[in-house]
């Protein structure tokens, strides 16, 4: 079927019986768009929130034909929609209905703006405006590459939503423009997605799905798709191989961004090939190593993003990483500052830091209210409660999966050391809850001394830190850690008793906490006195691992 640009798809039209969505003819599609466009007449700005693919396509074109500006919200979470509708945009989705008295569908202005959102590095979602003409050009560039791989009547199935540029183009617009029928429903589970596939079809999917194919048998020829698409993040080699074996065809990966749309592709037949620009796209590298994209479907015809690249000899490129605090989680761009900012907005949270260690991880210092909930719910359910709060405004990929709760975040400016301190919290398995509010007797404030060994310049003590230590009280039941201040107090106390020093208060203190110190463990404390430097150095170790170390001034005291 010939490609028809989106702006004149309905004005030019296709035969009445041509398929649009699976089971929906072009005649019905036209009637649905015309009827809803008539009902939307007068709407100035519409938010496309339809969850279903077919009604997403109807809503998009009805809004455009009604003369409204279209915003594709970054997600359909209530908090996001509330923020976007606050300035008068009308959500369009659930209220779309079939047919009705329609309006005439004239060609659309290719300059009509559509607004998308993506993760910005500042902590606020970033607004990206693209025109209908750019989306048309992207769909046609897509056909120039994929048209050779997918038959003209191939059905398009998807495991990704149409609310981002990848899903919108490959699930809806490319099929609409080229006359391929698309499945309306999105499949979250492989069990349903694979049952829907037919021979020669197209599957629009993602690394999140393709890395979770384990246990699925190779598809019979009657179910084998002609084209399997993936975008968002590079597919690991093992997943690419497994997918090729199951689907009987190598995965075709798409490279792009919200700002640029799709700009490059590669077939994962073997190894890690470079990305090939789509027809009409020119890829280059800025002096500071970023990807520069020139294309007619990119705003201003050129875009420089935050992807660090190296050019391949053949006009293609390889991606090396990101130049900002944007992480890729399950192939989605997640702004770490944004997740942190949203966490801090919760009344349950005093402070938060987020990082990626394969998964999105959050370290949270709860507020007083949060600490009470943490004690009540336990760490797992408290983490899930925070996830639910975040899910009002963030996509699933932006919801941390691993949590640590601490009284205070590791100090220091944002940088490598702080990153390492925070990452260290996730190296150990989560700590089991310990019943802390036992009432029997006074609780110890110092560790038990198990052994004392002299050193050339000091003393070494083996200490057992009891689980019912009083100092753990100010901290959290889900995360019993020995406070740094207690460690310093003990170093001073043992130095005074074993080395005969008379330190009254820890002054001119330098200290570095490398790992959290948990109760119910045996630790070794080494104390060394350097009279010439007038300093006491201390180091807490667990086995060979340094937990914390530092030094304290020994000044102006009687020997």
């Amino acid at each position, binding site marked *: 079927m010939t490609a028809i640009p989106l702006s004149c798809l309905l004005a030019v039209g296709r035969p009445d019986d041509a398929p649009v969505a699976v089971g929906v003819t072009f005649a019905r599609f036209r009637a649905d768009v015309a009827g809803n466009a008539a009902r939307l007449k007068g709407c100035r700005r519409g938010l496309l929130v339809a969850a279903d693919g077919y009604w997403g396509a109807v809503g998009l074109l009805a809004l455009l034909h009604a003369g409204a500006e279209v915003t594709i919200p970054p997600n359909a979470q209530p908090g996001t929609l509330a923020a976007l509708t606050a300035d008068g945009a009308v959500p369009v989705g659930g209220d779309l209905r079939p047919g009705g008295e329609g309006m005439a569908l004239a060609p659309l202005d290719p300059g009509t703006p559509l607004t998308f959102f993506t993760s910005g590095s500042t902590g606020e979602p970033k607004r990206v405006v693209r025109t209908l003409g750019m989306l048309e050009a992207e769909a046609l560039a897509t056909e120039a590459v994929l048209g050779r791989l997918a038959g003209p009547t191939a059905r398009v199935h998807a495991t990704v939503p149409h609310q981002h540029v990848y899903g919108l183009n490959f699930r809806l617009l490319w099929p609409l423009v080229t006359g391929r029928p698309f499945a309306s429903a999105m499949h*979250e*589970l*492989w*069990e*349903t997605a*694979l*049952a829907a596939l037919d021979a020669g079809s197209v599957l629009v999917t993602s690394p*999140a*799905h393709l890395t*979770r*194919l*384990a*246990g*699925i*048998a190779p598809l019979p020829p009657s179910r084998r798709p002609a084209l399997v698409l993936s975008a968002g993040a590079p597919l690991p080699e093992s997943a690419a191989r497994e997918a090729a074996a199951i689907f009987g065809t190598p995965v075709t990966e798409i490279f792009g961004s919200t700002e640029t749309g799709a700009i490059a592709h590669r077939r994962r037949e073997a190894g890690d090939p470079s990305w090939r620009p789509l027809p009409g796209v020119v890829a280059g590298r800025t002096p500071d190593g970023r990807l520069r994209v020139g294309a007619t479907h990119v705003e201003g015809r050129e875009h420089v993003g935050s992807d660090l690249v190296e050019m391949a000899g053949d006009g293609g490129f390889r991606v090396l990483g990101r130049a900002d605090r944007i992480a890729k989680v*399950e192939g989605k761009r997640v702004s770490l500052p944004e997740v942190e900012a949203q966490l801090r907005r919760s009344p349950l949270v005093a402070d938060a830091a987020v990082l990626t260690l394969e998964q999105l991880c959050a370290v949270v210092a709860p507020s007083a209210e949060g600490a009470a909930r943490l004690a009540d719910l*336990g*760490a*797992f*359910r408290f*983490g*899930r*409660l925070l*996830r*639910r709060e975040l899910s009002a405004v963030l996509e*699933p990929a932006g*919801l941390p*999966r*691993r*949590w640590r709760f601490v009284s205070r975040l590791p100090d220091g400016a944002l940088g490598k050391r702080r990153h390492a301190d925070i990452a260290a919290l996730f190296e150990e*398995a*989560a*700590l*089991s*809850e310990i019943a802390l509010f036992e009432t029997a007797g006074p609780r110890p404030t110092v560790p038990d001394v198990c052994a004392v060994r002299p050193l050339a310049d000091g003393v070494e003590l083996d200490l057992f830190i009891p689980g019912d230590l009083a100092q753990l009280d100010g901290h959290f039941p*889900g995360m019993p850690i020995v406070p740094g201040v207690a460690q310093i107090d003990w170093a001073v106390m043992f130095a005074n008793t074993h080395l005969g020093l008379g330190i009254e208060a820890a002054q001119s203190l330098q200290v570095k906490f490398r790992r959290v110190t948990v109760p119910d463990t045996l630790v070794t404390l080494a104390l060394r006195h350097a009279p010439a430097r007038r300093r006491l150095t201390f180091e807490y170790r667990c086995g060979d691992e340094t937990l914390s170390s530092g030094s304290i001034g020994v000044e102006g005291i009687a020997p």
Partner: protein
Amino acid sequence: MEKLERELKTLIVDALKLEDIAPEEIDSEEPLFNDGLGLDSIDALELGVALRKAYGIKIESVTDDVKQHFANVRSLARFIQSQRAE
């Protein structure tokens, strides 16, 4: 059935690497997703992998109500048992 439910709870905690929660803390009728245990679509995919490995669920026999089977531990247990019976 009760044994299968216990088995599934352990599988959920192990396969999804849930931290800070023990299998017996999961209620059999508590919704697994959203407001209940708070699992998400990625967890659903992971759970699919784990169920395929542990119980060998076959795609061919799966129908549209697969989502209802994933509602809670009890419905999952019923689903697995019905698969075994076939």
